[in-house]
Structure formats: C-alpha cells, structure tokens
C-alpha cells in the first residue's frame, strides 16, 4: 500500500508561519514574512504556498534555536537541499539563504530565511507592517529576472501611492499609469534623482516606452549577474555537504553543525562583495547594451544603493 502524504492546507501554513513570527518576536528576534504571502496580505494575490522570511542576521542563532523546537504536524524541521547555507550570522550577512522543510516530504511546508533583502535600498526592519515586511521592501525584492514578478512590483507601488507614500513612483513599471499620472509626482526632483525616467513620464515623452523596457531589462541582467555569482560560489560547499552524506534522520542541530563545518571550509561569507558590486553592475550594463537602444541607457537608475546593504 502506498502512503499518500496529505499536504498542509494554505490556511494551516499561514497560521503556522504567523505563529512562528509571533514566537520569534516574543524572543526579541526582528523578522518579517515577505514575498508571495506578504503580497496576498497587501492585496496583490498570487498562488504561493512557501514562506520567505527576513530575519536580522545577528539573530540567526536565536532563530535556529526556535526552529529546533517548532513542530508542524508533529514533525520538526530540517535543512532542505545541499545548496542551503547554514542559518548562521556570518553567511546571513553576506546574502545567503537557508532553506527548511517540515517532514514528511511532500507536506508542502517550506521556509526560506534570509537576512539581506535582495535589492533592498533601506533597512527592512524600519518598514515592518504587522507580520510582513513593508511594501517598499517587498516591491524592491520583486525586481527579479522573472517576468511574472513585474506586475506585482507595479501593484505594490500603486498601493504605496494610495497610502500617500511617494516612493511608490519608484515601483510603477506600467507605461499607462506612468503616462497618465507622471505629472502628479509631488517631489519630482528628489524622485527623478533615484529614477530618471520619471522625468519622461512627467512630460508624457515618447521615449518613455524604450526607457521603461530598458530599466526592466537592466534589473533582469542585475538579477542574473547576482545569482550567477552566488551559484558559482556555492559549488564547493555543495559538493562537501553531499559528500558528508548525513543521514536524513539526523536532527537539526546535527545537520547545522555539519553545514557550518562545510561552510567554514568551502562557503565564502560574502561572494557579492568579493566579486565587486561595481564590477557586477558594469557587467549587467554591458549585457544590457547588447539588447536595448543605446539612447535608452541614459535613463537608467543608479542601482548602487540597492546593493549597499550587501556590503560587510
């Protein structure tokens, strides 16, 4: 007879993850749910089931301790996959992610934890909304190389505008919205410094479409470049974890100890910093120049501020 695993329902998981955040905060751990589940809460719904959690890097050890006691359906969590970095402040500060799952396999309870919000231009802890990271943080995190994420960015930006947060203009990537409302920007100088194409939006300039396309492609290239750096850096560590061949039945403490041992020898703390953020940005611009109109390059934003938090 085949035992079919009954996956946890969405409502069960949502309740469980919110309870986890509540317990973590009761221990003083700064953390917030982000990505898909946060989007649902903010009124930009999508089909998602796993939980992405931001946790202040210095509190990684405390969070690990909490996870070690956090049962779901009677099971304790374990690390997921050989690429998963240990939940340890040293690697957390450098932008690595720790992936966890609750047994049995197929239960659908997946948790990804990271300390640095990808592309975050300001500290996420300053913008927490209830159980969730703020709209600004979530919108910046959604600027990935996946096309499906971009309508979410605009929708979150629109929510910010409706709430009176002018930074919402930084996240509007819909040409129609920009053309119609670009002239309504309250502090154009300040925002245009961060996002030059708002100047084109304000005057309904015909060059807006090309500039907008270029900006989106720029973020795609930046995401590709960043992921490529981490993927290359993680290989020796992955091999070491695989070779160690820890029993799947090992407890979280034992799994963690082994990963730390492998990471200390094989996992660089901050590969993005080692590679050079200006170098990565330059390479993304060079890749972009191959596919967009040269004139549109003039309207690209200065993206350095989106990678400053990754610096040690």
């Amino acid at each position, binding site marked *: 007879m085949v035992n079919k695993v009954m996956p946890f329902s969405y409502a069960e998981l949502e309740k469980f993850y919110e309870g986890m955040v509540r317990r973590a905060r009761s221990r003083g751990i700064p953390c917030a749910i982000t990505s898909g589940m946060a989007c649902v809460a903010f009124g930009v719904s999508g089909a998602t*089931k796993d939980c992405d959690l931001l946790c202040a890097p210095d509190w990684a050890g405390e969070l690990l301790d909490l996870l070690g006691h956090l049962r779901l359906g009677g099971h304790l969590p374990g690390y997921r996959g050989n690429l*998963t970095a240990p939940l340890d402040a040293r690697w957390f500060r450098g932008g690595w992610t720790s992936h966890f799952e609750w047994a049995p396999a197929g239960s659908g309870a997946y948790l990804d934890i990271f300390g640095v919000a990808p592309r975050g231009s300001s500290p996420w802890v300053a913008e927490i909304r209830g159980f969730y990271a703020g709209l600004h943080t979530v919108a910046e995190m959604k600027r990935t190389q996946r096309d499906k994420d971009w309508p979410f960015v605009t929708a979150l930006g629109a929510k910010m505008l409706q709430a009176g947060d002018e930074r919402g203009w930084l996240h509007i990537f819909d040409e129609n919205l920009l053309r119609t*409302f670009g002239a309504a920007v309250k502090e154009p100088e300040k925002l245009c410094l961060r996002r030059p194409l708002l100047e084109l939006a304000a005057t309904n300039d015909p060059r807006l479409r090309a500039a907008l396309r270029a900006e989106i492609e720029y973020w795609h290239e930046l995401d590709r470049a960043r992921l490529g750096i981490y993927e290359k850096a993680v290989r020796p*560590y992955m091999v070491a974890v695989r070779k160690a061949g820890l029993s799947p039945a090992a407890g979280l403490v034992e799994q963690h100890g082994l990963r730390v041992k492998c990471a200390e020898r094989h996992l660089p703390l901050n590969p993005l910093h080692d590679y050079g953020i200006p170098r990565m940005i330059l390479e993304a611009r060079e890749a972009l120049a191959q596919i967009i109109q040269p004139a549109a390059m003039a309207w690209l934003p200065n993206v350095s501020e989106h990678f400053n938090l990754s610096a040690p």
Partner: protein
Amino acid sequence: MKKPGQSKKGLPPAVRRKLRQAIYDFHVRAFGEEMARVNHLPLAARRRYVAEMVDHATQKGVKFDKPALGVTP
C-alpha cells in the same frame, strides 16, 4: 509618527479617484478580471479565496516549492 516616505500632502481627491480607477484597470490588464476582483476584496475574503485556489491546485498535483538554491532571486 510619519512612516518612511509618507508625504503629508497626498494627491488631490480628484486625482486620487482617477488613480484608483486606473489602478483597478491595471490589475485587470496584469492579473485578469477575476484576480483584480480578488485583489480588491477585504483581507479575510481575499485570504479565503487564495487558500481555496492553492489547496485546489495542490490536490490536483501542482507543486509550489521553489528550488533550494542557497540564494533568493
């Protein structure tokens, strides 16, 4: 206390009304009529809808887990 980025002076009411409609139209274009409607439901109803949608997809064999890459896209 003023939140980061919050402007004291919001948009004029007429612009806000027009913006609200334009945002709804954007949701229809980007997510389709059904999800645009869901996105504008009150939180509890929206969560119920998403829960039913995800649970139904799970029952039909849809997997929602992302690969564990050691880094978040």
